[in-house]
């Protein structure tokens, strides 16, 4: 198998692009795809100051590396979730990545700074671990991006993530969720601009990018994510991808090109109902935001 670009030995074939790449040209391919997503979806101004949500996994570290290569002024934010050794190891991968490259890393620890961790939240509330985790991270990332005056909050959601979420939202015709599923959400009412520059790359491609560029990352799956429905959706979509390469990209990118703007009205309706949390001041549809309610519940139950 030969590299489509240089005709040297290839190490990976990307059927959806009808291409094979060596290490050097795989890395270039990934950077080009991120650059194209940023351009096509008008995500970021050149040289923008951005905050990257980092977990220690392949996607966020690959994204941080690529955006740094592309010349953006980057800082990373890692949230310590308190999921035992898994979180300890994840944090060490992030710290090693940042220190080796001289990049700015901000850290928030849920347990010491907010009085709970994800296993506790899952045990004491009716939320699933993934729901508590997602809620906590969204709140803390949003707040850090606003407080730090960053131009955008950037997340490592890849094509597989977005296709799986889209699949779930379509299966249930959740119109409000579908209306919000965009690679760029503009800044508004105390929420930062949010962008997803990896939407043109699959998980296999971001993992391969890490391997060929020497990025060490947390390979193990989060122990609390077992049975997560998005993983099942991803497996289903990959079955279709093997039978018909390019299916995932068509599904997600065609939704962005042809359908999501039909839901602009639904998106606007959702925005009108957003107020402010009486406790922390964050944007919220209710008097007390979901993050403050979660903190309050875990504090009460922990007594």
């Amino acid at each position, binding site marked *: 198998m030969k590299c489509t670009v240089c005709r040297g030995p290839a190490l*990976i074939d990307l059927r959806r692009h009808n291409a094979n790449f060596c290490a050097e040209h795989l890395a270039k391919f990934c950077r080009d795809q991120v650059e194209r997503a940023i351009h096509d979806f008008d995500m970021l101004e050149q040289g923008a100051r951005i905050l990257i949500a980092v977990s220690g996994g392949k996607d966020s570290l690959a994204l941080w590396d690529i955006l740094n290569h592309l010349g953006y002024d980057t800082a990373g934010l890692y949230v310590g979730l308190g999921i035992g050794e898994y979180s300890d190891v994840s944090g060490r991968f992030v710290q090693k990545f940042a220190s080796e490259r001289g990049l700015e890393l901000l850290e928030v620890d849920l347990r010491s700074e907010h009085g709970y961790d994800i296993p506790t939240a899952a045990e004491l509330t009716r939320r699933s671990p993934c729901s508590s985790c997602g809620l906590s991270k969204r709140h803390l990332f949003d707040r850090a991006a606003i407080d730090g005056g960053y131009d955008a909050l950037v997340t490592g959601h890849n094509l597989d993530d977005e296709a799986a979420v889209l699949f779930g939202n379509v299966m249930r015709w959740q119109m409000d969720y579908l209306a919000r599923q965009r690679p760029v959400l503009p800044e508004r009412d105390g929420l930062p601009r949010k962008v997803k520059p990896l939407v043109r790359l699959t998980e296999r491609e971001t*993992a391969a990018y890490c*391997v060929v560029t020497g990025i060490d990352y947390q390979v193990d799956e989060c122990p609390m994510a077992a049975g*997560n429905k998005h993983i099942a959706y*991803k497996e289903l979509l990959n079955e279709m991808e093997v039978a018909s390469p390019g299916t995932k990209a068509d599904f997600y990118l065609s939704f962005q090109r042809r359908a999501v703007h039909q839901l602009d009205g639904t998106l606007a309706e959702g925005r009108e109902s957003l107020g402010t949390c009486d406790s922390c001041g964050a944007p919220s549809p209710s008097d007390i935001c979901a993050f403050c309610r979660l903190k309050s519940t875990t504090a009460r139950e922990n007594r």
Partner: protein
Amino acid sequence: MAPIGHHGAVLLKLRNPNRTQTVPGPVKVSVLLDRLELNRESVLLIRNGTIVAGDTTLQDDDEVEIRPVISGGAL
């Protein structure tokens, strides 16, 4: 830690949970994935720190990590 006694076979290191398995070589990567009922979109094969292409034939005494690339959790 590699187990003792895999000489004369391909040693596979699998994840989630971490475990090992041996298969007789030579065996082509794409054939191996079919035998293990693994989707090629869901894994990378890594040998000596390098990705192994799908048309590569693995030989006895090769040690190969089969690394899953699907991640879930909070999106």
